[in-house]
C-alpha cells in the first residue's frame, strides 16, 4: 500500500513530531514482535469500542453541519462505524470482555474533545479532525503485516477500502481548507498518542 501521499500531505507535514508519536506505539510494536500481553489487548479492545461509540456521535453531528457533496463521504464513514461497533461487540462477546466497562480517563478526554468540537467548530475543521482520527489508524496499523493472531485486526485498518476512504477524507480537507484545521488536527494526534500510551500502560 502506498501511504506516502498521506505522510506527504500538508496537515501531516506541519504536525512535525506529533505524527510519529501518534502512529508508532509500543502496543503496535508488541503485536509485530508477537509479544502483546493479553491485558493490553483486552484494554485496547474495550476502550477502542468506547472510543468508536463517541466517534459515532462526533461524526453524526459533523454530518449535520457538512454541506451536501462532502456529506456523502461522511455518511459512508458513519455506516462503517456502525458496522465496526457490531464487529467489536462480536469480538468482545467471543472473548467474554465487558463492553459496559467505564471509559478510561484518556478515552474519555478524547471523546469529550471530539464531541465538544463537533458542536463548536466549523465543518472544515471537523473534516481535518476526522481525517486525523482515521489516517493515524491507517498508517499505524499499516506498518504491520496482516499475519499472526491479530491478522484480522491489522487488516481491518490497513485494507485498500479503508485507505480509499481516508484518501477521500484527505481530498475533502484539501477542498475545504480552513485556518483552524491544522491546530485541531494536531490536537487529534496528541490524543492518539495518549490513547496508545493508555492501551499499553493502563
Amino acid at each position, binding site marked *: 500500500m502506498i501511504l506516502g501521499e498521506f505522510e506527504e500531505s500538508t496537515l501531516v507535514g506541519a504536525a512535525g513530531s506529533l505524527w510519529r508519536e501518534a502512529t508508532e506505539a509500543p502496543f503496535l510494536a508488541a503485536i509485530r514482535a508477537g509479544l502483546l500481553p493479553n491485558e493490553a489487548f483486552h484494554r485496547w479492545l474495550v476502550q477502542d469500542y468506547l472510543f468508536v461509540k463517541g466517534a459515532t*456521535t462526533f461524526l453524526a453531528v459533523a454530518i449535520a453541519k457538512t454541506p451536501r457533496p462532502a456529506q456523502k463521504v461522511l455518511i459512508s464513514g458513519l455506516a462503517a462505524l456502525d458496522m465496526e461497533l457490531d464487529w467489536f461487540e462480536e469480538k468482545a462477546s467471543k472473548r467474554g470482555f465487558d463492553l459496559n466497562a467505564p471509559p478510561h*480517563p484518556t478515552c*474519555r*478526554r478524547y*471523546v*469529550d*474533545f471530539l*464531541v*465538544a*468540537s463537533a*458542536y*463548536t467548530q466549523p465543518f472544515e475543521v471537523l473534516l481535518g479532525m476526522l481525517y486525523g482520527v482515521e489516517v493515524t489508524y491507517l498508517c499505524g496499523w499499516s506498518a504491520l503485516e496482516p499475519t499472526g493472531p491479530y491478522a484480522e485486526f491489522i487488516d481491518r485498518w490497513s485494507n485498500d477500502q479503508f485507505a480509499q476512504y481516508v484518501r477521500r477524507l484527505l481530498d475533502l480537507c484539501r477542498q475545504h481548507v480552513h485556518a483552524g484545521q491544522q491546530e485541531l488536527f494536531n490536537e487529534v494526534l496528541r490524543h492518539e498518542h495518549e490513547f496508545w500510551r493508555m492501551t499499553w500502560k493502563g
Partner: protein
Amino acid sequence: MLHESLWRENADVIRSCLEHPFVRGLADGTLSHDAFRYYVAQDALFLRAFVRAYALAAAKCADLDHARLFHELMTGALNELKLHAGYAAQLGIHLTHVKPDPATSAYTEFLLRVAWHDSLAEIIAAMLPCMQLYWYLGTELAASLYPQHPFEDWIGTYSSKEFKQLCTRLEWLLDEVASDCPAVRDAYCYAMKCELGFFSAPMENPP
C-alpha cells in the same frame, strides 16, 4: 436530597481537594506567587467555558423560572471573571495569551460536551461540584484568615453569602430536575475529579 447524597458519595475526592497542597497553601498563605498566577490564568479559561455551559443549560429549560436561575448563575460567573481580570492585572497575566493546561482542557471539554449534547439534569450535575466545592473550601479556609492574608479576596469571594446563595439555588435545581441515575452520578463524580486535577496543575507546572 440528591445533591446531598452526591456530595456524600464523593467525600473522598472532596477531602483530597481540601488536603491538596495547593489548597493548604491558599489556607496558610504560603502558596507561591507562580502557582497562584498559573491557577488564576487557567481558572479564567475554565470560567469562560462555565459561562457558555450556563447559557446552553438555559437554552434547554422549558420552565422560565429555571432559565432565570441560569441567567443569575451566568451573571455570577461573569462577576467571577471580573475578579480574575483584577487578579490578572495585579499579577501581570495577559489572559488572552494563556494556553490551556491539559487538566483545564479535560474539564472544559467535558463541560462543553455535556452542555451541548446531554440533558439539563446532566449539565447541572456537571456544574454543581465546582459551586459546592468552592463554597465548602471558602468556608473552611475562612477560619484560617489572618490580617493581610494574601488570599483574603479569594477566600472572601467563595465564603460570601452571595456565593452560597447561588450554590444553594443550583442544588435546589438539581433536586428539582434530576433523578438519581448513573448518568447524573457519573457527570457529578467526573466533574469533582476534574476539580482535583485542576488544583494539581499549578503545582506541577513550574514557570
